[in-house]
């Protein structure tokens, strides 16, 4: 059952991720990206990360992607214009990408023996309670610094995107 769920949502995630890259219209890419984030939320649940799964749906698939779609609609972004790529990109782009993926896969295979496997309920330390306890004790300083970061980001966004009044 866990394996079937993993395979279904992993395939959805990979297909949507490919769709993000190959679609020429940004709104299609954005909707595919929501698909990636939703299926990743299910995989987080499978790994026992309840709080992170909820935050993924609310923060990523909700807030961030709505912001993206608003900007796409606001700028009326059309399909990307086709243009010839340089010779080096055509020659080396895909092979280098496959080399990167192969290298990552190689290290994963070497560093992680096949003994460990994931089943639903194998780790129950990802509840809102335990995440909150760690957040407000061990990670209190980073948490407070994060609030400062968000304040600066809000101010920066307002300053950058405001209309010139004079």
């Amino acid at each position, binding site marked *: 059952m866990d394996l079937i769920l993993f395979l279904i949502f992993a395939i959805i995630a990979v297909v949507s991720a490919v769709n*993000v890259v190959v679609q020429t219209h940004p709104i299609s890419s954005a909707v595919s990206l929501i698909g990636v984030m939703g299926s990743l939320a299910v995989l987080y649940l499978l790994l026992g990360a309840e709080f992170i799964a909820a935050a993924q749906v609310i923060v990523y698939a909700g807030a961030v992607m709505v912001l993206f779609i608003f900007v796409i609609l606001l700028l009326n972004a059309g399909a990307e214009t086709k243009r010839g790529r340089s010779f080096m990109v055509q020659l080396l782009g895909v092979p280098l990408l496959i080399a990167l993926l192969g290298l990552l896969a190689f290290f994963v295979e070497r560093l992680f023996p096949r003994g460990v496997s994931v089943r639903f309920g194998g780790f129950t330390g990802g509840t809102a309670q335990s995440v909150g306890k760690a957040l407000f004790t061990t990670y209190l300083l980073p948490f407070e610094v994060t609030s400062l970061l968000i304040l600066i980001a809000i101010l920066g966004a307002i300053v950058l995107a405001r209309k010139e009044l004079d």
Partner: protein
Amino acid sequence: MSEVPISWFLMLSAVIFALGVAGFLFRRNIITVFMSIELMLNGVNLSFVTFSYQLKQVNGHLFTFFVMVVAAAEAAVGLAIILTVFKNRSTLDIDDIDSMKN
């Protein structure tokens, strides 16, 4: 067999990260490039949560949480920058935004 090998999760995260790199390098629309960055962050988040499962510790979830918060802040500032760029140059094509090239 109902259990999923832990390396499959990491492999999925590697695939999503590589696709994000591909989008970042091959696409020309600045918004799609920005979405590819989000795709890479999602791939890394999946590996954090997987490590958290493997080590039976909650720390990976906290890292993922901070990545999410920083990504939200980054999206707000980045999209404001995109709006400003579009206002000044009326284009979203990153090949046309080359004033620092010369």
